[in-house]
């Protein structure tokens, strides 16, 4: 062995020439390490593949000339972006390669921002400095944020865009869902600009629940809310029978009777006509807010109020009667308006709704009278499950920080999280799995499973992934802050009436209110008084194509006048044109008619002459002269979006003379065939 070694040594370093040669070879090899590493690197391979890909193409010469070999980097110090992605994604700007379906050679599809301005990782996340596929794309110990999957892409937009936007549909709907599904009752979510997300669902107060429903219904409901109403927001807590029994016992025991007179009132008789209930339900447009599941299983109606498919199995008739008469008595915070129904109407509606019952729902619920132990246990369960986070319950305080704060959930360190076997080890997978089935992470976890579609889970995940540490570092110049909630309140006697009718549940005024019905901020400049008073008395439909409509509140003359005066005097816009002179001669009206039917083809969407016109996308204009002021018609024609943001009517840049002529023509449309 030793002799072999010494002979090898002699052969390599025997004399100066030999040792020089050996050392030269060793030096050469050492020097070759760096170029070899680069030559055998992944990105070099991709660049070679790219060159092979473009070889046969028509514009190969141009593409080749634009291609620069070597490591490349987008460096934007202001945004702390150092991205080497373009080293492999070489064809980012080559629009002519749009038909290539092979990554990393696809050109970047057109998006709102330019790549050179924002870099890659600002939107896609991942590790920009990395120069191999695994490190750049996947979550690792050194870099936890992976490339974000396309379906959550808008999460990165959400780091700067805190305001809702139609350009970011997934993010916007995710944030809406966080508020709508009640997530933010238990979790806190603070945006980078300091604003917090507030819940928009309306969990009822349970202080007087025994007045409203039976213990049996409470039991059935908390066992499986969706069995009662498919659209129920409340999740299924998978309670054991004993636990549901004890919670229902506690709920009934904590309920205090309401001190008002409604309960003792005798039941009011319904109208004799059996169809009266259906027609009253339709006339009052209950379905604008309440849904009912029809025989085919399709849910028809709005989601502002609870689903009524099985309401007869839930509520007590005397409670329902009092509620329909005046919802304020039971729940001063309800979104339901106070309809001025007469006694017979109240009776008819009560009977109609009580008939919507499901005998199977409570058929198997048999509860023995509650014992004090059961009530005490129920109270403990209510505290443990955080029921008071959403509901007002007598004797139980709303718990603080019941669930983890989600303000920075998108940057949670993976070491702090528990992953289930088989779950990909990164934050997007964790969040979506947690939303989809929270209790797959442990049966003792409190968070229940919400009934969500895949699209909703994706949207919620997107909204939560936007809550990162990086969002805090965004400069104010780039950040689009969340809109401040408006605390607008009307004043005077009309304010009381507006509150009683719950106008803000559907209409927005000065930034406050719902989006189901038109914004009324400028309504006073738009409508004529006589029409408005008549409309309040009997809201006939303006848009036949709409299914959600203004209900008839049965207002008194005095109330209709009060509201009309307030709207006409207060809700005015200074942008509406000053008086538009009435038509001097029939020729002007005729000219307007020509423009209406010819140049602007308004009849594609509006009906002026019901015998001829067919379009029904816009409101019917047969009586538009009664409804709208000429000033409004003129101003609106000039620029519809300025007066109704988001309206369908396109801005046709109608010039002054044409707009005046069409206004003359439309102002003449007051019904009764005056067009002729």
């Amino acid at each position, binding site marked *: 062995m030793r002799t072999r070694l010494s002979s090898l040594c002699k052969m390599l370093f025997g004399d100066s020439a030999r040792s020089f040669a050996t050392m030269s070879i060793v030096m050469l090899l050492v020097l070759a390490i760096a170029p070899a590493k680069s030559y055998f690197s992944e990105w070099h391979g991709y660049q070679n593949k790219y060159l092979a890909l473009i070889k046969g193409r028509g514009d190969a010469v141009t593409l080749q000339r634009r291609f620069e070999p070597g490591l490349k980097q987008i460096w934007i110090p202001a945004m702390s972006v150092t991205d080497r992605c373009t080293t492999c994604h070489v064809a980012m700007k080559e629009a002519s390669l*749009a*038909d*290539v*379906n092979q*990554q990393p050679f*696809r050109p970047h*599809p*057109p*998006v*709102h921002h330019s790549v050179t301005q924002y870099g890659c990782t600002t939107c896609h996340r991942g590790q920009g400095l990395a120069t191999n596929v695994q490190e750049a794309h996947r979550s690792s110990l050194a870099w936890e944020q992976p490339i974000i*999957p*396309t*379906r959550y*892409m808008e999460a990165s937009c959400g780091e700067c865009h805190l305001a809702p936007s*139609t*350009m970011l*549909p997934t993010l916007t709907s995710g944030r809406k869902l966080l508020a709508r599904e009640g997530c933010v009752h238990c979790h806190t979510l603070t945006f980078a600009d300091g604003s917090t997300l507030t819940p928009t669902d309306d969990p009822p107060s349970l202080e007087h629940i025994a007045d409203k429903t039976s213990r049996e219904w409470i039991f059935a409901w908390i066992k499986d809310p969706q069995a009662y109403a498919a659209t129920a927001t409340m999740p299924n807590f998978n309670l054991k029978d004993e636990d549901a029994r004890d919670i229902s016992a506690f709920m009934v025991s904590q309920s205090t009777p309401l001190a008002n007179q409604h309960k003792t009132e005798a039941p009011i008789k319904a109208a004799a006509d059996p169809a009266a209930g259906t027609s009253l339900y339709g006339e009052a447009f209950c379905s604008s807010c309440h849904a009912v599941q029809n025989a085919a299983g399709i849910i*028809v109606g709005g989601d502002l109020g609870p689903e009524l498919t099985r309401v007869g199995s839930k509520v007590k008739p005397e409670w329902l009667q009092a509620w329909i008469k005046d919802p304020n008595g039971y729940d001063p915070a309800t979104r339901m308006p106070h309809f001025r129904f007469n006694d017979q109407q109240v009776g008819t509606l009560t009977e109609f709704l009580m008939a919507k019952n499901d005998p199977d729902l409570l058929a198997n619920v048999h509860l023995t009278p509650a014992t004090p132990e059961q009530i005490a246990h129920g109270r403990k369960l209510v505290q443990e499950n955080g029921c008071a986070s959403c509901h007002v319950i007598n004797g139980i305080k709303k718990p603080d920080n019941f669930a983890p704060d989600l303000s920075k959930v998108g940057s949670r360190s993976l070491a702090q999280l528990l992953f289930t076997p088989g779950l990909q080890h990164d934050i997007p997978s964790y969040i979506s799995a947690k939303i989809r089935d929270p209790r797959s992470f442990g049966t003792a976890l409190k968070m229940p499973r919400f009934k969500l579609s*895949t*699209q909703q889970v*994706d949207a919620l995940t997107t909204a939560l992934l936007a809550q990162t540490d990086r969002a805090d570092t965004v400069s104010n110049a780039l950040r689009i802050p969340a809109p401040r909630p408006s605390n607008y309140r009307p004043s005077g006697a009309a304010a009381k009436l507006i509150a009683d009718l719950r106008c803000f549940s559907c209409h927005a005024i000065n930034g406050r209110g719902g989006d189901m019905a038109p914004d009324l901020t400028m309504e006073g400049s738009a409508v004529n008084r006589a029409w408005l008073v008549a409309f309040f008395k009997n809201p006939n439909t303006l848009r036949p*194509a709409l*299914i959600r409509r203004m209900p008839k509140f049965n207002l008194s003359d005095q109330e209709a006048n009060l509201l009309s005066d307030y709207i006409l005097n207060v809700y005015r816009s200074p942008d509406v044109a000053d008086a538009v002179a009435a038509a001097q001669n029939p020729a002007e009206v005729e000219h307007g008619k020509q423009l209406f039917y*010819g*140049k*602007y*083809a308004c009849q*594609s*969407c509006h009906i002026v002459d019901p015998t001829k016109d*067919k*379009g*029904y*996308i816009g409101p019917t204009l047969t009586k538009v002269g009664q409804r709208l002021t000429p000033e409004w018609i003129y101003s609106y024609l000039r620029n519809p*979006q300025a007066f109704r943001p988001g309206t*369908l009517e*396109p*801005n*046709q*840049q109608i010039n002054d003379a044409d707009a005046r002529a069409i206004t003359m023509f439309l102002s003449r449309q007051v019904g009764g065939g005056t067009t002729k």
Partner: protein
Amino acid sequence: MKAATSLFLLVVLLQGCSHRPSRPASSVPAGSLLTEVSGGKQIGAAGTELDQPIVVQVNDKQGTAVAGAPVTLSGAPGVVFTPASGVTDASGQFTATVRLGETSGRYVLAAATYDAQGNPINLKLDEVALGWQQSRGRDLAHNSCDRCHESESTAERVSNHDNLDPKPHAFSEGEALNRFSDADLTNLITHGGPALGKSAEMPPFGNTLSKSDIESVVSYMRAVADPPFRNPGVVYAQK
């Protein structure tokens, strides 16, 4: 001896590499016809689950449904089926949800089953994945265009299509719309029908939608055209 062993091993290994699906056992029910029930020609955003699941039906020669027949779904890398394979139910149908790949383009999905002789029967389904710009175009179209251009009414949107003459083209009507260049379509939307000698019932949207909005709408029309626009964009299919 050594050479023989390595040759044998090589053959075994190559067998393992081959893509030929193994012939199912004769006891497995087999049909002779694989048809699409629903789920083809859907349009969804890239990387998201399609609204409707894919449903395929296995029938035998007499046209009777075959229950328990094996069905395998496959697509380009990135396409996720839940479940990707299984057997048909009592009515001979197999249902799976599909999540399209991460990038936009047309996706060709393949369903396969075996006949009694063990030969594969294949079925292809086309789906379209929209990129951000095209999804934006779809949202804008939904808001501003579909009420007249789509003849189907939904609960939330009553169609105005029947009230118009001439009838507007649906955006998927490739045969009519592929004849227009991008510039012509952009002009039509910006300046209205009369700009191209068409009906004034098509109003100008140039002051309502921004330039990039109109680009988005055009790119959406191109993405959903059927037959595909002459530059068909990306097609993802298995090799």
